C-alpha cells in the first residue's frame, strides 16, 4: 500500500522515531495496539523498517537475536497491557545474558492510569527488577531524551535491557521542538588496578595447572582477541561457558570445549584439577559450578568482570580484576610479557587427554540419532553461518558440537533458558546479518511456542533455515524424569505433534523431511542448497539423552556418561 502523503502534525511518536534514527536504528520488531498507535502513525511511510511479528514475545526475542549476533542494540515495541506483558520473558532473557535491548511500550493515557483502565498494566513496576531500568515518560519534551538515554544505558558497562513506557496522550501530544538533550554518560568501564593485574600475573607465573574460562563478558570482538592472545601466549588450556563459545580459536588445540552440566569431560576435569582458575566475564552460573563449595575449593581464582556485584557472589575471588574483559586481559598479557612468560603446553596436553570423545546413546536400528545428525549437520554447514538454538536437549547437543568462529555466531538463551527463543531470535539474526547463513536449531516443544512466526518469515522472506529436531517429547524434562523421577513421564509426551512440513507449506515455506538415517545426508544437502527460508524436519530417536551430565548441584565426580555410569 502506498503511504498517505497527506501532511500531519508531528507528535510525540515522531520524537521516538527521531531518537531511534539518531541511534542508528534501522529495524524494529513489534506489534501494534491501541496505546502505541501514535508511534505507528509516525512510522507510516517512514523509511525505518518495522517487522511485524505475530506475538510480542517474538518481537523481543528477535530484538535479542539481533543484538546477540551483531553487538548492536536490538529494538522492539508493543502496546500497553498484554502487549507489554508479553515482552517480559524476553526482557528477563536479555537481562540474564547481558544483552542490550530497548523496548518501547505504549501506556494508557495519563488520566486513566490507576483506574484499571482497558489494557492498563504497570509495566514499569513489573519490569523494574527485570531490566536495567524502566522509565515512564509523562512529558512530551522528554521523549527523545529518554529514548536516547535508554540506548546509552542498555549498551553501557554490563549491557542489558531498558524499557521506555509512554502514555498514549504523551505520544499523541504535539511534537516539542526543543527536546531536552540526553544526559551525558560517564565512561562506565572500570579499569582493573595495576596492583591487581600484577598479582594476577604473579599467580599465573607460579601456577602449575592453570586454566582460563571465557564467559559472556568475553563476547565482544576485542575481548575475544584478547582471550586468544592470552591463551596462545601461555599455551593455556581453556574452556568457555555456553555464551562464551566462540571466544576460543576453533583451531587452538588447547581449547577444551564447553564447561558445565553438559560440558565436556576434559573441561570439567581440568577446571577441577587446576591450581589457578582465570575467569573472564563469567558469573558462575549454577549450571557451570554445580555445587559451588566443591567447584574449585583449593584453586587461586582470578576473577575478571565489569560488574563488581559478581565478585564473591558465588565463588570467592582470590584476585578480583574489576574491568572490561578486553582491557583487563590485554593488561594482563602486557604485564606477563614484562618478565618471564610461562608456557603450559604440557599441562594443556594432559588436560585434553582427560576427556575423550563425547559420550552418546546409540539409537535403535532404523532410528536417527539426533547427535549423529547434528555431527553431519555441523560438518556440512557453511563455516560462516550464524546458529541460533532454542532450549533443551538439542541446545546442549548443538553447544557441545558447534565450533563458532566468534561468540556472536552462536545465539542461545543461556541464563533464562527460554523455550520459544530460537526461531524468533534467528529472525532477528537474519536482519542483523544480511547475506549470511542463519540457522535456527529448534526442538519440537520450543518451536511450537513461537511457530506462528512462520508468517513473519513468509511476509519478509526472511532467509532463515529452521532445523527442527523432533523427538516427539519435551526431551530435556523427560531426561530428568528418566534419571531423577523414576521414569514418571509427566506431561512430556508430544507424540501427537502436527505435521510440521504441512504447516510450513501452509506458509509457502519450503520443507524437507528426514525420516531416518538412510535419507539424512541427501536431504540435508538439498536443504542446505535451497535458497531462501526453509524448514528441515528431522525425526529423531526419542530416547537419546544428553551426555555427559553432572546432575544439578553435583560435582565433577558425579559426571555421568550414560544412564548406568
Amino acid at each position: 500500500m502506498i503511504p498517505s502523503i497527506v501532511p500531519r502534525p508531528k507528535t510525540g511518536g515522531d520524537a521516538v522515531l527521531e531518537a531511534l534514527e539518531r541511534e542508528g536504528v534501522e529495524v524494529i520488531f513489534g506489534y501494534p495496539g491501541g496505546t502505541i498507535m501514535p508511534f505507528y502513525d509516525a512510522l507510516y511511510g517512514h523509511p525505518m523498517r518495522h517487522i511485524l511479528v505475530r506475538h510480542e514475545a517474538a518481537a523481543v526475542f528477535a530484538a535479542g537475536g539481533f543484538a546477540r549476533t551483531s553487538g548492536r542494540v536490538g529494538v522492539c515495541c508493543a502496546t500497553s497491557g498484554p502487549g507489554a506483558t508479553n515482552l517480559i520473558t524476553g526482557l528477563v532473557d536479555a537481562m540474564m545474558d547481558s544483552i542490550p535491548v530497548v523496548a518501547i511500550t505504549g501506556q494508557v493515557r495519563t488520566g486513566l492510569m490507576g483506574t484499571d483502565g482497558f489494557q492498563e498494566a504497570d509495566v514499569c513496576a513489573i519490569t523494574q527488577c527485570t531490566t536495567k531500568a524502566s522509565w515512564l515518560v509523562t512529558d512530551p519534551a522528554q521523549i527523545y531524551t529518554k529514548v536516547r538515554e535508554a540506548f546509552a544505558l542498555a549498551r553501557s558497562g554490563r549491557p542489558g535491557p531498558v524499557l521506555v513506557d509512554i502514555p498514549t496522550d504523551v505520544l499523541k501530544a504535539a511534537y516539542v521542538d526543543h527536546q531536552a538533550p540526553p544526559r551525558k554518560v560517564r565512561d562506565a568501564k572500570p579499569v582493573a588496578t595495576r596492583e591487581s593485574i600484577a598479582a594476577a600475573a604473579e599467580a599465573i607465573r607460579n601456577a602449575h595447572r592453570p586454566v582460563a574460562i571465557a564467559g559472556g563478558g568475553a563476547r565482544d570482538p576485542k575481548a575475544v582477541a584478547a582471550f586468544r592472545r592470552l591463551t596462545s601466549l601461555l599455551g593455556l588450556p581453556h574452556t568457555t561457558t555456553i555464551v562464551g563459545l566462540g571466544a576460543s580459536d576453533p583451531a587452538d588445540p588447547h581449547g577444551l570445549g564447553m564447561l558445565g552440566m553438559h560440558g565436556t569431560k576434559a573441561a570439567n576435569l581440568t577446571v577441577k584439577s587446576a591450581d589457578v582458575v582465570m575467569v573472564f566475564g563469567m558469573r558462575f552460573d549454577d549450571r557451570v559450578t554445580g555445587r559451588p563449595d566443591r567447584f574449585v575449593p583449593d584453586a587461586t581464582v582470578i576473577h575478571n568482570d565489569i560488574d563488581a556485584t559478581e565478585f564473591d557472589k558465588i565463588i570467592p575471588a582470590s584476585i578480583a580484576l574489576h574491568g572490561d574483559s578486553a582491557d583487563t586481559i590485554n593488561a594482563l598479557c602486557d604485564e606477563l610479557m614484562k618478565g618471564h612468560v610461562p608456557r603450559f603446553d604440557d599441562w594443556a596436553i594432559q588436560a585434553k587427554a582427560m576427556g575423550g570423545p563425547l559420550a552418546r546413546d546409540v539409537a535403535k536400528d532404523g532410528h536417527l540419532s539426533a547427535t549423529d545428525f547434528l555431527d553431519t549437520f555441523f560438518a556440512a554447514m557453511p563455516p560462516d553461518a550464524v546458529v541460533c538454538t532454542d532450549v533443551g536437549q538439542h541446545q546442549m547437543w548443538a553447544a557441545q558440537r558447534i565450533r563458532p568462529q566468534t561468540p556472536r555466531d552462536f545465539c542461545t538463551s543461556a541464563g533464562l533458558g527460554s523455550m520459544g527463543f530460537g526461531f524468533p531470535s534467528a529472525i532477528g539474526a537474519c536482519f542483523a546479518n544480511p547475506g549470511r547463513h542463519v540457522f535456527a536449531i529448534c526442538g519440537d516443544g520450543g518451536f511450537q511456542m513461537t511457530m506462528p512466526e512462520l508468517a513473519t518469515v513468509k511476509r519478509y522472506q526472511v532467509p532463515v533455515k529452521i532445523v527442527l529436531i523432533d523427538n516427539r517429547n519435551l526431551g530435556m524434562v523427560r531426561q530428568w524424569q528418566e534419571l531423577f523421577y523414576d521414569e514418571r513421564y509427566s506431561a512430556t509426551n508430544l507424540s501427537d505433534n502436527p505435521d510440521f512440513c504441512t504447516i510450513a507449506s501452509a506458509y509457502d515455506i519450503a520443507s524437507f523431511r528426514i525420516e531416518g538415517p538412510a535419507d539424512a545426508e541427501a536431504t540435508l544437502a538439498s536443504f542446505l542448497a535451497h535458497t531462501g527460508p526453509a524448514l528441515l524436519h528431522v525425526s529423531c530417536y526419542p530416547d537419546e539423552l544428553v551426555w555427559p551430565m553432572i546432575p544439578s548441584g553435583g560435582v565433577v565426580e558425579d559426571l555421568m556418561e550414560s544412564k548406568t555410569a
Partner: protein
Amino acid sequence: MTYHLVVGDPRTVARVINMAHRFQCRATRVDSRSTDDVTTADFEFAGPQEQLDRLRAQIDRIVQFEKIFV
C-alpha cells in the same frame, strides 16, 4: 546491615524493599526523602549474613546502573 541509598529514581526504595524480602531479609527501618532529582533512603536490614551480603551487592548494582549518567 545499614545502607545509605542515593538515587534519582524514587521507585528504587520500593525495589530494594522487595529485593530484601525476596532474599529472606527484612527491611526493619526505612527513612526516605525525595526531591525532584534525588532520593535518599537509609535502610536497616535484618537477615542471614550471606543473604545480606547478596542484598548489598545487588543494591550496589542498581546504584551503578544509575551512576552512568553524569
